[in-house]
């Protein structure tokens, strides 16, 4: 009994889609989620991974099938069919990727907005109740923020931290508490806003478990906002080639329970902190 080709195509499509969705949801390629941004990111990853798997399996299947089914048998010197094109078919495979790409683009825009990526960087200085940033009215005089991820605007308290990157270390300064440290300590569940500037060359601040990265650029302050959601220690990695010891330019972000963070603040408040690698306070 002959099965109609349309039915076979439909079945293959369904199987491929299911396989893609299964792979997308069950194959975990990412490190643990430790910031409020990470689950959002991982949702996007699952969508991209599923669509990618469907496409990749489909096209690979087509190639392998074609190479086996339409291979030239020995002794056959004839030609294949003289098909030069098929406009409806070509329109279909122009339209489908266009729709998929448009969907992915809009979806990732939504994700980006939820991450706070679309928050205006220039009104930002006026919004944040910060100790060091005075002259809110004369915003033209304010330090310009050149790039980064701003606040998502949940209105909660924000912990500002000044980050200075230099060959080959990150220095963290807590403006309120006058603490300077080589490690970043943050409380669980509170928004943290990093004001970052580099001393010498371009560096990049990356915490894989937060799914966040921002270049730290000499002469152009940048900002990075995140809310840690999981206590623990995570690596801070410099991701921009910055010289011979680039691979060694690493630090740690420690996410404390709020009480433990207060204790850390208290115990480090004196100016005689040994945690910083002996650098003058910026």
């Amino acid at each position, binding site marked *: 009994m002959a099965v109609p080709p349309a039915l076979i195509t439909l079945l293959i499509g369904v199987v491929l889609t299911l396989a893609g969705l299964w792979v997308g949801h069950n194959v975990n390629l990412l490190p643990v989620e430790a910031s409020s941004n990470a689950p959002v990111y991982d949702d*996007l990853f699952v969508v991209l991974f599923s669509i990618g798997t469907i496409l990749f399996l489909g096209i690979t299947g087509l190639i392998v099938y074609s190479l086996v089914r339409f291979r030239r048998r020995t002794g056959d010197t004839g030609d294949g069919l003289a*098909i030069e094109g098929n406009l409806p*078919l070509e329109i279909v495979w122009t339209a489908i990727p266009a729709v998929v790409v448009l969907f992915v683009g809009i979806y990732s825009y939504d994700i980006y907005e939820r991450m706070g990526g679309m928050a205006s960087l220039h009104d930002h200085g006026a919004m944040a109740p910060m100790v060091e940033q005075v002259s809110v009215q004369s915003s033209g005089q304010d330090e310009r923020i050149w*790039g980064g991820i701003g606040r998502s605007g949940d209105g909660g308290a924000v912990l500002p931290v000044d980050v200075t990157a230099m060959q080959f270390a990150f220095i963290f300064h807590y403006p309120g508490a006058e603490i300077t440290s080589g490690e970043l300590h943050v409380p669980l569940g509170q928004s943290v806003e990093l004001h970052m500037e580099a001393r010498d060359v371009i560096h990049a601040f990356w915490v894989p478990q937060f799914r966040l990265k921002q*270049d730290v650029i*000499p002469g152009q302050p940048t900002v990075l906002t995140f809310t840690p959601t999981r206590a623990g220690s995570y690596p801070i990695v410099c991701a921009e*080639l910055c010289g*011979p010891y680039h691979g060694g330019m690493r630090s740690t972000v420690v996410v404390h329970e709020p009480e433990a963070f207060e204790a850390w603040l208290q115990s480090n408040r004196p100016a005689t902190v040994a945690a910083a690698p002996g650098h003058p306070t910026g």
Partner: protein
Amino acid sequence: MTVANPLELEPGLQPQGWLRYLSFSLDHKVIGIQYLVCGFLFYLVGGALAGVIRTELASPMSDFVGRDTYNEVLTLHGTIMIFLWIVPVVNGAFGNYLIPFYVGARDMAFPRLNAVAFWLIPPAGLLLISSYFLAGAASQSGWTAYPPLSLTTPAAGQIVWILSVLLLGGSSIFGGINFIATVLKLRRPGLKLMQLPMFCWAMLGTSILVVLATPVLAGTLVMLSFDIIAHTGFFNPSLGGNVVVYQHLFWFYSHPAVYIMVLPAFGLVSEILPVHARKPLFGYTTMVYSIMAIVVLGLVVWAHHMFTSGTPPWMRLFFTIATSFIAVPTGIKFFNWLATLWGGKIALNSAVLFSCAFIFNFVFGGITGVALAQVPFDIHVHDTYFVVGHFHYIVYGGSVFVIFASLYHWYPKFTGRLLNEDLGRLHFVLTFIGFNLCFAPQHWLGLNGMPRRVAEYDPAFTTWNQVSSVGALLMAISTLPLLINVVVTAFRGPVAGDNPWNALTPEWLTSSPPPVENWIGEAPLVTEPYGYGEHPGGFDLDRISGRDLWSSGKS
């Protein structure tokens, strides 16, 4: 049409035989082979440097070469592979060899400029490599040479790097102008644009990109060299300069550069598949429009390399959309190739295997590329091994696989001899397995926290790095069957005959190897370069009479 003939211009001075490959020859075929061999030698150097990188990364500590040396090695590896291997070979080698045939000309539009363009490459390449020995230190700032790092690393090496890239960029521009003039102005009378083989369109598009984008890189590098030598402050923040402007200018060239490496490969695959599948190229017209769409879009996507840099939110958004949409014309091309294979009679030879592996690799790289175009996705994996994996799937899995496919396809044209198929398939299997073993794990490494361009890393990543290094070793070994095959065949290979593939494109309608001015007598007029295939119910006579007509120009 009269074209400068080297024999008439300088009687007795142009060497004959193998010596002409070392001479200032004006013959486009000689220049094409010069590009190919020269590029391959640099590929071996770049590959050895890749070997150094993968050896260093076989352990999480920086223990194989010094840290400065490691950065020199990764800079030289990138620069050599891009500017001395892929760009010169996909454009210079195959472009020069094939384009005059395809347009029905006896040479390129400007043969002397063509020779100058080639002869800029060996000195520039030697200059670049010698900087490692002469200046005491080669450039250490990566092939991107971002300031202020490139302003603070040893100046002599950086200046030599800039000089050699300027020379190579000049060579590329000369070549681009030549291809545009040849395709548009040197076509045989009666040959229309929409009858050209697809590789002509690919080279036309590529050359437009070369001519528009390369001068921007040249200007940028001149400014960078002023910052280094004359202490100007274009990109020096301590003198009021702006480091992000450099990134914009650099990527305005260097993203189109990816298309400069990949579009000619698209063109070459479009030539190879129809011949070996015995079918017409599917969707000629949409293929042409996709190439042009890629050219236009390719010029407005550069800032996706700067999503984590100092770019405002709206700019991140615009470049996400523009970059994603480049997948549409690219997708059309891939579906058209699949449709070309469908229902064909496919010869499973090395050329086809490499071409199909190219589709496999490039689709994978394209999917990760669309993912990388999404700002939120990129913010996590930017500047990590994920990007290294993606990039190599595009330029190695894409362009280099096509270079190998093209070598198997056109070697009989270059030499008149057929490469050994068993060695060819061994080369294919080793390359394919080695390549995927080397670069697939790098995606996981990047997602989980390994940045690129590091000599040391978190010991948790050791296993997959070692797998990757084993893959690199396989890739190195895979070069051996290719080398043996090419060298032995050149002397002892079976004679191929003029047209071993029964192809219809014009380069096959002359002797192999072809005479100096390509055809004895008139150039053939090929209006249907992909006229393969049996029309159901039609007569075979059509094809046979056509071929007899075309080959009349041969003798």
